[in-house]
């Protein structure tokens, strides 16, 4: 126990929502007696964001500001964290499980020879000891993990808790970082071009997952239901990875985020990366042969059964209801 260092991320000049969620966890642990909260902001021309964070519960905010930090670079980022660790001597470092967090956090843990726990949805003190809760097997099981050494480096699932929205007195302290040789460099970011289906506009989406089993089953089983309902077809990532459908059909954190009036998920287990893409749909129907599939936790109506039986029967019934059969 001791100092908690929140490693914030800056996006478009502002502190990311996920970083304010880290502040929530840090404040909660501090309130339970873990220690003091400090933060680190890394970027170029981000003094304003650091000031904001200092007012939003970040405590003393160490600021690594310089042109070298204008774009994310794993080596530069890690060196800023090392400098902050030398200054603040934290026993717990918190990062978000984002493309930045999962890229740099394990390196930091290895460099500090510390305990690393990734993608936690909860961190708490129990009998004075830190315990971390995370999911394993793509959300099918929960694990309770105890760090056995310090410092502890933990990444936290975005959305695991609301952002901290209190005020607290903090201050910004400039951090000097001497950058050694960087062995990788940022070249550019780009947005993959969107073509074809824009699922974000569909009122009804029928998505198929790995459980659909074969590429030809999409036009044979999933698309007909989407057509009967006058909706669009979607998919989970493994379907796209296998080349069964192009990327524009993918729903989830690395695909499209959709909020249709009706989302039907067939043969999709409900991994968090899929759920973040569809859980805010107005109404969700899940069809899965595994009664314990996590998708049933976010669904409004659930059917435990074989999609190859349920989906065609539903397609027929919908057509009949529309007087098309």
């Amino acid at each position, binding site marked *: 126990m001791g100092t908690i260092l929140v490693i914030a991320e800056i996006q478009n000049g502002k502190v990311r929502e996920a970083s304010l969620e880290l502040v929530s966890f840090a404040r909660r642990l501090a309130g339970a007696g873990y220690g003091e909260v400090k933060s680190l902001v890394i970027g170029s021309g981000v003094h304003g964001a650091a000031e904001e964070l200092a007012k939003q519960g970040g405590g003393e905010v160490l600021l690594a500001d310089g042109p070298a930090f204008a774009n994310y670079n794993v080596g530069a980022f890690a060196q800023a964290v090392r400098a902050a660790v030398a200054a603040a001597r934290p026993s717990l470092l918190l990062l978000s499980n984002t*493309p930045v967090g999962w890229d740099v956090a394990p390196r930091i843990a*290895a*460099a500090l020879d510390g305990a*690393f726990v990734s993608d936690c949805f909860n961190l708490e003190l129990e009998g004075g000891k830190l315990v971390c809760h995370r999911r*394993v097997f793509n959300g099918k099981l929960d694990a309770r993990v105890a760090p056995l050494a310090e410092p502890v480096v933990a990444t936290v699932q975005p959305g695991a808790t609301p952002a901290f929205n209190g005020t607290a007195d903090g201050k910004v302290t400039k951090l000097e970082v001497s950058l050694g040789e960087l062995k990788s460099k940022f070249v550019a970011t780009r947005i993959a071009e969107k073509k074809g289906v824009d699922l974000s506009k569909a*009122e009804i989406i029928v998505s198929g997952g790995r459980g659909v089993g074969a590429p030809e089953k999409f036009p044979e089983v999933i698309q007909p239901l989407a057509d009967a*309902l006058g909706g669009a077809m979607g998919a989970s990532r493994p379907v796209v990875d296998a080349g069964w459908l192009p990327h524009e059909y993918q729903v989830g954190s690395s695909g499209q985020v959709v909020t249709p009036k009706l989302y039907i998920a067939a043969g999709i287990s409900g991994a968090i990366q899929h759920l973040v893409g569809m859980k805010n749909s107005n109404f969700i129907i899940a069809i899965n042969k595994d009664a314990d599939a996590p998708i049933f936790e976010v669904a409004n109506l659930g059917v435990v*059964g074989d999609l190859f039986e349920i989906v065609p029967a539903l397609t027929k019934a919908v057509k009949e209801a529309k007087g098309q059969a």
Partner: protein
Amino acid sequence: MKIMVCLKQVPHQDARLDVRADGTWIQEDNIKFEINSYDTYGLEEALRMKDAAGSGEVIVVSIGPDRVTQSLRTALGMGADRAIHVKDPEADAADALGSAKLLAAIAKAESPDVIFTGLMSDDGNAASVGPMLAELLGIPSTTSVMKVEKANGALTVERELEGGALEVVELQRPCLLAVQTGINQVRYASLKGIMAAKKKPIETRSVADLGLAGKVGAAANKVKIEKIAPPPKGKGAEMVTGPTADVVGRLVSKIKELGLL
């Protein structure tokens, strides 16, 4: 061009997940195993890189019990040249940092130009070992890799960010790439490949062979899984049961109620 590919063998994606008696992991007896999905993509990318270079060697490395031999054979059948199996109960008990230390010892001995790992494993979902291994070796790394191009000794890769954004990164070699699924279409082992694999070597190493006795394993771990359990059930969905006709009838009336039919 020497390429090292880290392969983890994990429970088959459709395996039954029952918590074992001590409550700290799943029951692994009598279930099927397979190569971690992310790692099949890493292996494929390595094989393509070797082919493009026209020469070189692809070495697959796995830490795990006897059963891992089968995954290594599969990898050799797909075209890997050589396999190293870290076979030692102490190694099996290692946490992510311990695994990274074992793989680092092998990488130091082999000096590969490029190391491929998966972004994460399908069982523990830790997404830790790759970047840790790179840090221990002092080489650059990047994660969620969706495209790899070689130019002037360096590698230019695309990594996946959120919501369809990509980041282009250039890395000096040697480097480590933790690949995302879908980066390529993975080949199957051909019959010819499987026959040829029978003659390819699988070397074994113990923790002591790697100079890490006492430094890796249960006693050296920095994290411990105390318990695993199915997630607590929330309110959950209203479950519709009964014969298919009734189930479908209920769904249709709900869709009508929503004003969508």
